[in-house]
């Protein structure tokens, strides 16, 4: 609970999928825009004033799990992906 995993989509697209308490799922691009490393799935999940966030493990910027917006640099955001869970299988769609 409260952690992410990485998944590989077609065309070498990497997605970070997060599962929060209450089976709330979010998916973002795994690519950290500040370092260029595919690591967001390995960040710490938490909240900032109530919004669910992941913190990049490289330089520690926070991203809103629902919108992909970076909370520490308003000019930056990462791609989000739609998530649907059916029959215990997580499906990730396009943004």
């Amino acid at each position: 609970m409260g952690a992410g995993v990485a998944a590989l989509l077609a065309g070498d697209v990497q997605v970070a999928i997060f599962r929060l308490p209450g089976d709330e799922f979010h998916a973002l691009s795994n690519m950290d825009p500040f370092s260029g490393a595919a690591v967001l799935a390995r960040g710490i999940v938490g909240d900032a004033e109530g919004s669910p966030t992941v913190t990049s493990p490289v330089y520690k910027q926070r991203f809103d799990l629902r919108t992909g917006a970076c909370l520490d640099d308003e000019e930056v955001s990462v791609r989000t992906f739609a998530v649907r869970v059916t029959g215990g299988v997580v499906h990730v769609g396009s943004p």
Partner: protein
Amino acid sequence: MTRTLVVAGHGMVAHRLVEAVRTDDPAGTWKIVVLGEEARPAYDRVGLTSYVDGWDPAKLALPGADYAGDDQVELRLGDPVVAIDRERRTVTTRAGFEQGYDALVLATGSRPFVPPVKGHDLPGVFVYRTIEDLDAIRVAAGKPGRGRRSALVIGGGLLGLEAAKALRDMGLSPHVVEMGPRLMPLQIDEGGGGLLRRLITGLDVTVHTGTSTEAIEADGDRLFVRLGNGTELDLDLVVFSAGIRPRDELARESGLDTGARGGIAVDLSCRTADENIYAIGECAAVDGRLYGIVAPGYAMAEVVAAQLTGGEATFPDPDMSTKLKLMGVDVASFGDAHGVTEGSLEVVFNDAVAGSYKKLVVSDDSRTLLGGVLVGDASEFNTLRALVGRRLPADPGAILAPAGGGAAVGVDALPDAAQICSCNGVTKGAITHAITGEGCDSVGKIKACTRAGTACGSCVPMLSKLLAACGVEQSKALCEHFTHSRAELFEIVRATRITTFSEIIRKHGKGSGCAICKPAVASILATLGNGHILGGEQATLQDTNDKFLANMQRNGTYSVVPRIPGGEITPEKLLVIAQVALDFGLYTKITGGQRIDLFGATVDQLPDIWRRLVDAGFESGHAYGKALRTVKSCVGSTWCRYGVQDSVGLAIELELRYRGLRSPHKIKSGVSGCARECAEARSKDFGIIATENGWNLYVGGNGGITPRHAELLVSDVDTETLIRIIDRFLMFYVRTADRLQRTAPWIEEMEGGLDHLRAVIVDDSLGICADLEAAMAKHVEDYADEWRGVLEDPAKLARFSSFVNAPGTPDPSISFRTEREQNVPVLLGVPEVVGR
């Protein structure tokens, strides 16, 4: 037009003069030539006694005293002025160098006074003024001899007691003989002197007052001293500290007047009868008075600098207040300490049980503070000194009463004009302006902005109080989820025995946590022994390095550092590391901590790498953790011609004892086998240096942005005592430091600093040492290798996978190129940022 200022002498006061002129004369209209007698630039002579702690002259250096990079200042050392030609306005140095001047400032200081006692010039008899004097005493004190060695200090004033402390720190039993009726007769009164004597005697110093030294006689290596009261002492060495005499011979020889008690006669503008010649510091007799402490000397330097740079200034009423800590005993006097003001009244509080003597001297209407004496507890010194000459905020008796019953004097009671930092002359008004007007919200910023607290540091607690008084709250909240500091959270978790983050945040915080509080709590849980750090919910709390038990690098790969205790490794084990690096294509580099770092491992490779290393007898080196990193060592007495102890053996023992200890920040250590200090132990959080008799333990050092040398905590202890004290030190640090606070700032921000730390973990003043030791014993017992813990648990192993839907597929964004025959990462350009 450029004029030439010649400064004769380079002590603390001369340096202050040069600094002040350079600050007030940015255009450089004065060319300054400094001609000093000593071979080294001005140093902190006031702090001379601290030289015994480490024997490092660099620690006494005054910042900028070599004037490197300043073309306006020429510093000639080891070549004093020996003659002045006032007609031609030139000086001549001992080496025959002649220098013209437009203005000449004599800052020649003073010499120790050695009374003409029989035997005063024997070998083994010393004075106490320079680094060289202490070096000579050290050599004499270090000579082999029978039993406990002893020394006599002649003179029981401020400097004499400092000398006694230095001798005691060198391991000698000091005697002090004072002709006056009490110790420190100039500064403190009879009541304070009585208590001081009792406290000092309790510290293995034998005090003889009201008697003189009749004669010193040598017999072989021994010195025998006969005192006026008939006492005979058998000694290893004798140190004269019987006062100082001004170095005024240049003035005498060039026809300038001297004061009745010596000293170069100057007026209140510090000028001699020759309008081009000034005198400042201990060599000057200002309006007939000599001053032997540094604060009035600094004031003289400022007075002369102001005149040279076009201003006017006269010598202000000097601040003769004194505060010092002698072997842990506070002694302070300020203002009219002896009550010589006509009609003055004394109010005394004397608590023989608590070892505290306080006296206030007040005006005849008991409303204005004139001065005072504090012995045993001088915590109110700063506030009281600043109140001298002002209305007392309460009845003097109430002010002296012990805390709780008394009307304590707060910073609020001080007027804006009151001086808080007397070393640099910074007033309360200037500090509050820095806080409210310039936005200084920490002690560090106030120091940088006003210079307050940057010299002797005794006013630093006042700076904190002023911050609080100005409404600056130094919030201790860890983050938005917890209002507690890390230390408070530690106590909560320890007391309540809660073992999960969910329960802690539910009961004591709010929200779901973040990248600040989660790792902080994870560290606390780990210190308190809650199993493997990746067990259950704990895995989700860890920073990426702890989560993968390796150090993340910039391309998302990790580096692996196996533990190599003390830096000692067999060739067989080196071969294993080499083969692993070859097989996995890892870049290898030797670290600063005497081990080997293997770079470029992907998440899914980590367990395979660990398995190979663990099978060969390696374990995690915790290079990724806020934990003990390494204990670096020199090769020690086993091989080294100079080593006096087995530094490698101790380093290995310490590294294995404290491995895996989770802490507020990384902890580094080092052990050197002799005073040459090849292991650089004093740059570590705890460093150990071997002595002939055991080990010296230094604490609070670090490299990094603000390098710090560790300071001496205990000396000449055996290995068992050493380890017991390190156990306490580390556990006390782990429990009470802030998040990401290394040991140096932890000690610095502790009220009472290193002395308080020593009281707690050496003298057990809080009665917690047994508990700290028990906690460390539990840590040692519970230790298990974290890598092995993952390899033996399929659930933990499962996390080391590149993609949840394609385990085994390597991350396509990672690639390497070759540089100097090794793999290094190909960095991707930062990808296009998608707009919202």
